[in-house]
Every structure is written in C-alpha cells, then in structure tokens.
C-alpha cells in the first residue's frame, strides 16, 4: 500500500463524493424547504439524461449546453408536477410519498414507451474522455467536470439561500410558514419555485450521469436510494448533505481500495444505518415549526 495509490484513492473519493452529492442536491432542497419526500427524484434524474440525449441526438446541441438545457427542461417538468399535483398534498406527507412514487412509475414507463428499453449514450467532447494525471493520481477528465459542476452548484445554492431576498423567503417559510405569510411571503409560490429548482438540479445530475453510465429508463432507481441516504444522514440541510456526501464518498473509495467496490458499498450502507440508529435526526437537524 504505497502513498501514491492512497492519494489516488482519496482523489477518487472526491469524485465519488461529488456524484453522491449532485444526486442528492435537488432532493435536499425540496425536502428541506417544503418537507416533501420526492420519490420521483430518480425519475427526474432520468429525464435529465433523456433531455440531454434528445437535444444531442435530434438537434445536435453541444454537450456542455445540454447540461443547462436539461436543468431548464426538468425544472419546467417539476413546475408542472408541483402545480398539478404536489401543491394539493403539502400537509399530507404519506400521500405525497405515494403520489410522487406513482409519478415516477408513470415517467419511467412513459420514457420506456417512447424510447424503448435499450440503452442510449451521451457523447462528450474528445477532451473529456481523456485522463488527467496529477503526480501519482490519475482521474478521468469527465470526473473532474462532475466535481467542478457540483462545486459550482453548491456555491450557487449557498449564495441563493443565504445572500438573496429569495433565500430569506425560503428560509422563513422553512422555519415558520405562518409568520412568513404574516409578513407578505407567499409560501405556495416559494414551494413551487423550490420544487422547480430541485427538479432542475436533478436534471443536471441526469445529464452528467448519462455520460458516467448508460441512459436507461430505470437509471434513476439506484441514484434515488443514494440521494435519500445523503439527505437523511445530513438532516435535510444543504451543509449536512455536502458533509454526508463528502464522508461517504471518501469512505467508499478507501474501503474499495482496501477490499472491493461491492464490499465498500455494503460497509457504507451499514455505517449509515448505524449512524442513524444513534443520530436519527441526521448531522444538522433543522429547528423551527414548519406548519
């Protein structure tokens, strides 16, 4: 076990962490702001991948433009979903859970009807399919892109939530919906916008995952479980999800380095279960009354 391969494992850990994190960002925002457990998150990730695929395959949009375009497309789908269904279910968590699960089934089957069950592929510019060497460490360029996009999104979200008037409104609604309303904040509109934002983030994740993996109607299923674990372990806050993903990614990479990837995942899931046994509220629990 030499220094170079340990360093390599740690750098790979950052990359794995960024994947855990970007999968969980949209879910964190929707759960954190509106308290909605969005079971359709995986399907929204999948739609992001198919949006990029369509834009690239039928219109020939360059891949880097497909990422923001997928954000917009899936955000609009999220907006329609929220206005058409979720907005009527905010005070009924179990119903939201079932309804969003139903939506995800419809979306997955719908995509399967249109595109079939055979895998699609997203093409990336030549430069992204090479590797970067940093001394001992070696990492594919595209994984660096994923890390960069994730870091940018986290920064943008932090600014949005902590430095803007919109952020004050969202955090006010999170803490006390009634007081927020008493001071002119339309919580229904805030929920709608955060849901669209969370969906859009799933779209970005999808357009990246479509390159890391193949594009399939069921591709969201595995990510949604990961994403939920990060949201729960993090306590439903942005900082919590960032830290939970960071730890999980590094641990997974280190365990995979020592043993193998399957065993690493097994250990990770086990550790999360043990962690939640002793800290069921997650890393950073929110205070305040939602409703």
């Amino acid at each position, binding site marked *: 076990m030499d220094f170079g391969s340990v360093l390599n494992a740690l750098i790979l850990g950052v990359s794995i962490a960024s994947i855990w994190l970007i999968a969980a960002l949209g879910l964190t925002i929707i759960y954190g702001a509106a308290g909605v457990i969005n079971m359709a998150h995986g399907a929204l990730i999948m739609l992001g991948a198919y949006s990029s695929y369509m834009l690239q395959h039928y219109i020939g949009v360059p891949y880097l433009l497909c990422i923001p375009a997928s954000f917009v497309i899936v955000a609009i789908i999220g907006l329609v979903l929220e206005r058409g269904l979720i907005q009527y279910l905010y005070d009924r968590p179990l119903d939201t859970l079932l309804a969003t699960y139903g939506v995800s089934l419809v979306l997955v089957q719908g995509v399967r009807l249109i595109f079939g069950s055979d895998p699609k592929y997203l093409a990336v510019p030549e430069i992204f399919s090479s590797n970067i060497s940093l001394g001992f460490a070696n990492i594919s360029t595209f994984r660096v892109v994923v890390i960069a996009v994730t870091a940018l999104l986290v920064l943008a979200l932090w600014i949005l939530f902590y430095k803007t*008037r919109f952020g*004050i*409104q969202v955090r006010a609604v999170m*803490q006390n919906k009634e007081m*927020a309303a008493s*001071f*002119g904040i339309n919580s229904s509109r805030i929920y709608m916008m955060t849901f669209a934002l969370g969906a859009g983030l799933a779209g970005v994740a999808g357009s990246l995952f479509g390159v890391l993996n193949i594009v399939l109607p069921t591709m969201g299923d595995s990510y949604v479980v990961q994403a939920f674990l990060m949201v729960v372990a993090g306590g439903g806050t942005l900082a919590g999800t960032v830290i939970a993903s960071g730890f999980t990614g590094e641990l997974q990479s280190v365990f995979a380095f020592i043993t193998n990837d399957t065993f690493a995942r097994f250990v990770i899931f086990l550790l999360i279960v043990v962690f939640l046994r002793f800290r069921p509220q997650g890393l950073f629990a929110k*205070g305040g009354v939602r409703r």
Partner: protein
Amino acid sequence: MLLSFDKVSSYYGATQILRNVSFDLEQGQCLCVLGRNGVGKTTIMRTIMGLTDRTTGSITMGDEAIANKPPYQRAGYGIGYVPQGRGILADFTVRENILLGTFARKDSAPEIPELCLRIFPYLRENLDRRAGLLSGGQKQQLAIARALAVGPQVLLLDEPTEGIQPNIVHEIGEILRMLNKELGISLILTEQHIKVARKLGDAFLMVDNGRVVARGPIDEMTDELVERHMTI
C-alpha cells in the same frame, strides 16, 4: 375608519371561536382588547391576519374588503403583526428577522427602515446575532421592529408585555405610546394588565366567550365591567 369588523365569526376546523364580533378602529386610535384567557382575544388578531381556518362576516382595511384575501396579502395593506409568543425566527439573525418585515412593503425596499433601529439601539448593535439567543424582552423589541419594517398603518400587538421583566414592560409601554401618539400608528393591543390598557388605550373592546360584551372609550371601562369579565 381604518379597520372594521362587521359581524365576524371565526373558526378552527368546526369549532367556532369568534361569534359576530364587530368593532371599528379609527386612524391613530389605540384599541385595547380585554378579557380572560381563552375568550378569543388572540383569535381576533389571527382573524385580522387571516390565520384561522375560516371566517364569515366582513373585514375592511381602509376601503378594501380583506376577509377573503390570503394571509400573505394582508400585511401589504399596512398591518404589522406582533403575535403572542413573538414569532421570532430563531435561526435567523436579528437583521434577517427585521428584513422579513420588508417583504410586505408596497415599495418592497430591501433595507431596514431607520426607525426600527432608532427606537431599539440594542438591535442596531446586534444585527448579526442569532435571534434565538436573545432574551424575552429583546425578542419582543425585535418583534416590534419587524412589524414596523412593514411600514404599518396599524400594529397588532398580542400580549406585548407577557413574560417580560417589569422595567422592560414600562419601556415597551413608552415606545408604544410614542408610536401611537407621535407617529400616528394605530394600535390594537390585547392586554392582561389593566393598568397598561388604561394608560395607552383610547378605546376598549371587552371580549367574553368569543363575543364582544362591551366596547367604548377607555374611560367608560368601569371597575364593574372589569370585575365581571376579567376576574376569575
């Protein structure tokens, strides 16, 4: 007339709390809502803000009927709300709590009005402190500052002196008097302390079991009325 209730009833679920409540608040007036615990004083405030489940009857603010407006639109008519228990957002800084008030402003200026900080120097010096760390009296100051940030024509103050040290009670009383008499902001005030009510109030509204049992200028609030509806 600034704010009027005409035969307003208010409900939580199927439970009726207010029964045919009518009153008028004139521009610049200080109206004290009096009564025992649990008779509906807080519900009057919450009904003005639209926070009960259902209301019937008519509520007008200025010339506008507001009974059917959603809560988030009501503050925009110039109503600053200081709820019972103060409703301070604990995770917010002092600054963010005051800024919350500015969302209801017509000009939606994203600045803290100078007035809020001039009256409460403590808040000016602690703008970046987490509001959850403030004492009860400081939170009450913050709640009043936040309501003032709305740029209100009327302030609704629900038990503003509840659970506050006696010396601060006096200070808050003075500030409310100043807002009312010098700046001409109308006040609706629920109070347990008859003394505070007599000192600040121009008019009173005696509530018992969800109904208005007496109302009029404050000097018509006789000891006999207080005896009958406020002592236990």
